[in-house]
């Protein structure tokens, strides 16, 4: 072993030391071909961290009470000592902004640099979801634009009006993303320039759509739009929209009959930001796993090269172990699967499969067993999201290590049933089950816009396709209320099970149901 020449020891840090560590980490990361955006590392205080945390990590956010609520919750938890503040926060932007808290020890700062500035950063730059759906270069500018625009709206239309609109949009923001179509990249400058133009244009478009409404709706709905009024059958078209729409907010922005142009713009802003966060919601395990794998690898390299001393590496191991700890399901600390633990275990095992494949691995992963590990890991990082990553790479060994098991919860059955455990018969089912568990399409109810009655009472109908008879939670009513505010006319929601409507929700509620809800 080389003689130890640690860059620094003890737990105090200064900028010079941080810079030297950063240089070393950058050199090692380069060896591992971690391709990153430039790093912008910001040293901040605890309180600033709470601020950043409360605004979901957006460096500039518009004002809304829900961020205040978040801030109060964070502050309360922190004061009570329930929560060590997240010691890192990193923003998917170019340059990539990472926060270091001034109270962190030297070890923590080095760890965070390895974790955030090289782990997360390279993930943001490399993963296909981020490459496709977000535009790191312009996000900060766009946030600035959004903030300014909303502040302007508040001045012009009052804080309450804007707040209510945002409430409604936030309720639907998970349904404000295009899942399959690549959005055009956002650019603040462009937005600002085009915004005026667009608002006029949008309004005109909406007006055209709605101007086709005939005087009075006929009894049988729109199928029989009076022949006398419309001898050419111009209005006898089919359903609008012709295809179900998954992006609720987009549909509202373009089609809601009564929204003012500025309101449409606000809907658009919320939608754009939801779109920006969409990949993050789908790559939690991978993203954290990747970053954790690299901070672990890089820290160990620093130690091997004698650049950190024993004290620091022990402190690191202590902290690393806490991060990747997975309490069992019956522990009082259990709160779901720890994405750090799962992700780290999977990437580590992936490397093992490449380097020391066993007979089992050759059976399960014939293509990657014994291949170049770095190449394989990079490939995995670039081309998957949580769902497909687990589907592809969850190995029997990880299942055994974490002792994963699958429970079937059927409301028609009085008892729960253990459907699979970590044995030969169970591996594949557990893998499928876990992948499904991370599929956004399963985690969130599948709700789409089915039709807007543009020729009748202007009501909007949504369809919820039930998955395994799982109903909607009661929160459906307040969300429908918000949707109703945006749409301006009655809103209906139909739950479908195997092609049949099993439950209907309305807003505004019919009189007799009003009390019930």
């Amino acid at each position, binding site marked *: 072993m080389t003689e130890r020449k640690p860059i620094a020891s003890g737990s105090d840090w200064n*900028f010079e030391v941080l*810079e030297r560590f*950063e240089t070393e980490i*950058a050199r090692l990361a380069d060896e591992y071909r971690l391709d990153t955006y430039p*790093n*912008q590392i*910001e*040293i*901040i*205080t605890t*309180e*600033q961290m709470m*601020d*950043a945390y409360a*605004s979901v990590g957006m460096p500039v956010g518009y*004002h809304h*009470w*829900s*961020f*205040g*609520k978040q*801030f*109060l*919750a964070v502050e*309360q938890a922190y004061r009570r000592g329930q929560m060590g503040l997240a010691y890192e926060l990193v923003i998917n932007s170019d340059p990539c902004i990472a926060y270091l808290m001034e109270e962190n020890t030297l070890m923590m700062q080095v760890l965070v640099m390895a974790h955030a*500035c090289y782990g997360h950063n390279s993930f943001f730059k490399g993963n296909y979801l981020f490459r496709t759906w977000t535009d790191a270069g312009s996000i900060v500018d766009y946030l600035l634009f959004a903030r300014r625009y909303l502040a302007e709206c508040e001045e012009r239309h009052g*804080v309450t009006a804007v*707040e209510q609109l945002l*409430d409604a949009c936030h*309720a639907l923001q*998970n349904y404000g993303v295009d899942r399959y179509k690549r959005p055009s990249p956002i650019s603040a400058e462009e937005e600002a320039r085009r915004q005026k133009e667009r608002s006029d244009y949008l309004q005109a478009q909406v007006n055209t759509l709605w101007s086709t409404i005939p005087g009075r709706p006929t009894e049988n709905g729109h199928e029989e739009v009076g022949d006398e009024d419309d001898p050419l059958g111009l209005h006898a078209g089919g359903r609008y929209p012709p295809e179900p729409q998954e992006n609720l907010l987009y549909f509202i922005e373009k089609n809601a009959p009564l929204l003012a142009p500025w309101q449409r713009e606000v809907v658009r802003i919320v939608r754009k930001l939801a779109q920006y966060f969409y990949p993050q919601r789908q790559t*939690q395990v991978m993203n954290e796993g990747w970053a954790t794998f690299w901070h672990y690898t890089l820290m160990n390299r620093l130690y091997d090269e004698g650049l950190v001393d024993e004290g620091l590496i022990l402190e690191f191991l202590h902290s690393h172990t806490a991060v990747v700890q997975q*309490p*069992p*399901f019956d522990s009082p600390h*259990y709160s779901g*699967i720890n994405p750090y633990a799962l992700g780290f275990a999977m990437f580590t095992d992936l490397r093992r499969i490449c380097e020391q494949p066993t007979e089992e691995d050759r059976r399960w992963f014939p293509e990657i067993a014994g291949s170049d590990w770095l190449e394989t890991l990079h490939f995995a990082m670039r081309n998957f999201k949580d769902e497909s990553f687990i589907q592809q790479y969850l190995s029997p060994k990880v299942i055994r290590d*974490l*002792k994963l098991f*699958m*429970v079937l*919860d*059927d409301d*028609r059955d009085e*008892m*729960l*049933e*253990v*459907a699979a455990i970590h044995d030969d018969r169970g591996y594949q089912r557990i893998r499928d089950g876990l992948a*499904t568990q991370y599929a956004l399409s399963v985690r*969130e109810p599948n709700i789409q816009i089915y039709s807007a009655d543009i020729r009748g009472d202007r009501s909007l109908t949504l369809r*919820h396709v039930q*998955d*395994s*008879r*799982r*109903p909607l*939670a009661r*929160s459906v009513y*307040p969300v429908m209320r918000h949707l109703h505010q945006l749409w301006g006319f009655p809103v209906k929601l139909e739950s479908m099970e195997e092609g049949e409507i099993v439950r209907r929700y309305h807003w505004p509620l019919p009189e007799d149901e009003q009390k019930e809800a």
Partner: protein
Amino acid sequence: MTYFIDRRANARHKSAVNRQRFLDRYRTHIKRSVEEAVNRRSITDMERGEKVSIPTRDISEPVFQHGPGGKRSIIAPGNKEFVEGDRLRRPGGGGGGGSGEGSASNQGEGMDEFAFTLSREEFLDFVFDGLELPHLERKNLVDLDEVRPVRAGFTRDGVPARINIVRSMREAHARRIAMRGPIRRALREAQEALEVEERKDPVLRHPARIAELKAEIERLEKRLESVPFIDTYDLRYNNLVNQPQPSSKAVMFCVMDVSGSMTQAHKDIAKRFFLLLYLFLERNYEKVELVFVRHHTAAKEVDEEEFFYSRETGGTIVSSALTLVDEIITDRYPPTQWNLYVAQASDGDNWDDDSLICRDQLANRLMPRLQYFTYVEITPHAHQALWEEYEKVEAEYPERFAMRQIVEAGDIYPVFRDLFRRRTVQS
């Protein structure tokens, strides 16, 4: 490529606006909590923030979610004893097992109450929300004792600490332009003349003239240089003048009966009332002084400790205290300079004959000089002569005199609010 940026010196309260929005939105909830807290708290305790809880369901941000029911499979870690096909009892309550939404529900549904802490200022804001000091005319002063320095333009002389750099530099710049202009012009002329002279045919040159011009140029250049960059003449100072101010000082007299009939419980109630009033005044005036006057048959000015905690016995003569207050005002707090408030607490006992004197004292001597007089009677019993006499005073000074009855500690805050609620219609 990496940059380090030290942001620690940046603004801290980035979330202040959002926090305020949140508080505004849940004003009614928070107010309820605050009111409970005020009634519950011990008196010395008003000076800190308060933990407030709001039912989570009231502040949830709804989204479409799966409800309970249907069929689903859950993957969980840490299997120790199960084998495939085992059947388990459903864990009670239904929660707990939802690993799919585990991280999301951490802050949301897990807790029934959303708790957070109000800062002291926020707390007091809520305590006094919607309250207003009656008769809040600031004293306009005849003898302008109280002054405040305000900015009033710029002067040529002053102390170095008040130098206005921008102004001074601008003056200097202007002076330099003004002083150098003519010299520059003369210099330019001399240089041109010299050039003309030098371009002439050597025979025609005038050596004396050239020498003269050169000397002139040299002299002018020197003069140009000697124009000072900044001169004492240029200096400008921020000017402050003293402006008379309406008084921002208030004095609050706490008057309390400490005769035998007043128990410690009575005093505690009174103390809370005084404290509320004090905090309230403190928010409206820059400076609030307290004067404690206690009385049984005789009145005495005491310090706070003695006021609240020492016991006396004997009968009660309220007018003694009023007389003392009157004397103190005359001696130390000229009404032209002070806003005077009197808060009196008693159980209503008084010597029968004395109540009349009290009324006379109040109506004729005190009330004309006071901003406000509040009287709280802490008694569950029927009113006595004092109350009746005071009612007459109230009729005479409806805007500045207020009285209420308090039966138990819980009444204080409502009574206080009642006494000071914002009166928009009147006035």
